């Protein structure tokens, strides 16, 4: 955790934590309001223990009178770990999310690994030969214009693992972000100095470019987490992988707001944490 703390740099661990909590609070408040104004709010409220709707809801006995109070009670329930009951799966939301999060986490971890290897190989190839960099950049630009879900089709046809499609979908944008970071290094004075000193290609690449841009590269990689999560949702749904993406998708068709709310909160925590990590001092 010390490493993460120091990486937060100018933002500071305390401000980063406040930002993550604020993002979660905002998401939860939006969820509470959607729940209050949804047709199925009586069911959603009933599924959380001791949560009455009273005069406005008319369901369970008289404690909540307006949206503000409803949202406040909803936040309180979430803080106590009560995410409600899924009408689609007839199971507590907390259990469902915990089960599926493990499978999704495994895919996400493997995708991040494959993505890192692919990015390293392609970036080094681009730094090695200029014309290769041009071709890789052009291919990345075209592939970036393809919706993530389409990358899952060849993987599904070949019965390959979903993490390959997730990595493939996130690869073009990641390459372009990291390429932009390294391009800024190209004109740096220290590189001209290293060249004049007769440093070899590897020394210049490793010490002059990659290590010099280490922090920016880390920030660029951290900003890719929301992209990876978005790709994960789309790929899981197309491939039919039993993870959080499929859970959320079935939740939409079942109008299962408590289930969708729990998945949204989990993803919101991950994206806001990665966003805090990617923040630079302003």
């Amino acid at each position, binding site marked *: 955790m010390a490493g993460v703390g120091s990486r937060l740099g100018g933002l500071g661990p305390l401000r980063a934590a406040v930002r993550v909590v604020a993002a979660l609070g905002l998401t939860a408040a939006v969820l509470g309001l959607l729940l209050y104004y949804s047709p199925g709010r009586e069911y959603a409220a009933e599924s959380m223990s001791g949560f009455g709707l009273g005069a406005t809801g008319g369901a369970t006995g008289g404690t909540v009178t307006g949206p503000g109070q409803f949202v406040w009670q909803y936040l309180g329930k979430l803080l106590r770990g009560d995410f409600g009951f899924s009408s689609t799966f007839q199971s507590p939301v907390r259990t469902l999310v915990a089960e599926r999060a493990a499978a999704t986490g495994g895919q996400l971890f493997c995708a991040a690994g494959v993505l890192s290897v692919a990015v390293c190989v392609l970036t080094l190839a681009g730094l090695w030969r200029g014309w290769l960099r041009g071709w890789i950049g052009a291919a990345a630009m075209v592939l970036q214009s393809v*919706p993530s879900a389409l990358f899952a089709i060849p993987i599904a046809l070949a019965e390959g693992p979903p993490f390959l499609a997730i990595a493939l979908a996130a690869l073009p944008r990641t390459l372009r972000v990291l390429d932009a970071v390294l391009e800024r290094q190209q004109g740096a004075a220290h590189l001209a100095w290293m060249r004049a000193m007769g440093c070899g290609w590897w020394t210049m690449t490793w010490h002059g470019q990659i290590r010099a841009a280490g922090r920016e590269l880390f920030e660029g990689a951290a900003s890719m987490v929301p992209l990876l999560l978005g790709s994960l949702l789309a790929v899981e749904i197309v491939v039919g992988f039993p993870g959080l993406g499929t859970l959320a998708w079935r939740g939409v068709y079942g109008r299962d*707001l408590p289930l969708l709310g729990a998945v*949204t909160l989990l993803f919101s925590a991950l994206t806001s944490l990665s966003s805090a990590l990617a923040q630079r001092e302003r």
Partner: protein
Amino acid sequence: MRRLASLLLLLLAAGPLLVPERLAEEDREAVRSAPTGEHPLGTDALGRDNLYRYLRGMRMSLSGACAAAVVATGIGLLAGFLLSRLGRAGMAFWGPALDTFQSMPWYLLVFLVRAWTPLDTGPEQLTVILFTMLAALGWAPPARTVAAACRQLRQEPWAAFARASGMGGAQMFRRHYWPHLVPLARVHFLMLTPAILLAESSLGLLGLGVPDSAPSLGSSLTDLLQPGARWWEAAPLLLLLTAVLSLQTISRRPTDESKRT
């Protein structure tokens, strides 16, 4: 290159007008047929001509994305200008609030709104809700850029001179700030349009975009997910690539191209 890209976009937008009107009708004699002289890209399971359907979907998605990008850029301009008028204390609150808003998982927020929408909502209303949602999620980056630009412009010597000459806030905005903000708004519009187009296509592929009865690019792309999809059914992907790459080419500064040549 930029002219060619603009021409391609115009062609895509005017697509349905360029094909014969008879293709709009269902041909029950040719269900899921291969490309023929009458149906250049074959037909779907209801006997509808694929070429006409794809071009209509393209026009619908492109116009929806453009409208959503205009709304998002407009909200961003207004919000950015108001943010730039806040003091240090105001920015200390609103800056992180914008960060927080931008870090929310937009995919799932769209899922939530879709689940929340009543079952009797019509396809047109669903289309409007979807593009409004995408516009509402895209205003934050323009707002941030415009706020920074306005703060910088306010510190320019000519701005101080204009203020000292007794120019009011509205006049300052119209005469001095607006001409500087138009290029910024244009860039944001050109960046947001392909992003919204891609978002609509992705949601359509998952069955959560524009309903099939109001054809869009996303719903046309679902042909590729059907078992036994045929190669000509990849045409919507080609249309999407053309639109997104054309928009990216137009949004590139002229200096970028001259540098490359």
